[in-house]
């Protein structure tokens, strides 16, 4: 099994390249999904705030006419 992973004197270069590829893809994946979640959370929070504000306004109008 181990000789499959053995690239002789090129071990560092071949596995280094594969590592570069994986690290870059993983970094991109993490940053993409984090930014996507962040903006969704932001917009939802803003929507909630606006709904609460309009509900408060309605309540105030009902209690003191």
């Amino acid at each position, binding site marked *: 099994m181990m000789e499959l992973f053995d*690239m002789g004197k090129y071990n560092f270069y071949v596995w280094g*390249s594969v590592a570069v*590829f994986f690290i870059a893809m993983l970094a991109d*994946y993490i940053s*993409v999904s984090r930014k996507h979640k962040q903006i969704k959370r932001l917009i939802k929070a803003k*929507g909630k705030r606006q709904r609460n504000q309009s509900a408060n306004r309605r309540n105030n109008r009902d209690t003191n006419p």
Partner: protein
Amino acid sequence: MNRLLKFYHELGSPPSFYRITSHWLKPMLILAIVFTVYGLIDGLFFAPEDYQQGDSYRIIFVHVPAAWMSMFIYAIVGVSGIMAFVWRMKVAEAVMMASAPIGAIFTAITLLTGMLWGKPMWGTYWDWDARMTSELILLFLYIGVLGIYSAYDEDPRKAARLAALVAIIGLINLPIIRYSVYWWTSIHQGSSVSLMGESGIKDWDMLRPLLVMALATKFYYIYSMLNRAQTHLLKTEQNKNWVKKALIEVKTDVQPGAGS
């Protein structure tokens, strides 16, 4: 043709772009992972050794797909830049700005893995050779597009137009990269795969993992680009009704009966 045209117009409007592409994200990511796993196992363990370069040629399975993507994505950045500049399409702006980061990442992978391949084969990590220099300029072009967009943050639409201008001018670099190994004497080897079949890899066992990896990187690009484009549209259109409908009202409809 008519249906294709209708689809194109549908994709041009942010709400339907968001709705349609939401269904594509997961399949694209799964395809990318499956193809990467298969392509790398096939390429690293089962493809035969090269008669000249030994095992070191296996770097090709990440280097060449990344290099293809770096140029392919720049072509998309340039074309959507033209669309954004001429027709002021919001989705084209989103696609352009969403493609640039992943393109820059693929360019960086190309340069780094190329250096790791150059050291054992040429005896040096870097040489100011035409292919390497033009690929480095490509990285700077990506950074330029991203930098100009984020530098002008008062008006994102104007910023996108400025970035599109840089992207369009940068298109001239693509044929330079492509033909650099033929126009100048270069230490970089010629094309690994050519459609006309006059040069490059002939062995199917070597070619197969390379083509599988090329598909895997394409699928990953589609995933990453669409995800970023959606984020871009949500951010720039956050005060529009469709965003509220897509994100907020769906959830509130579910809430009353959700306790069951």
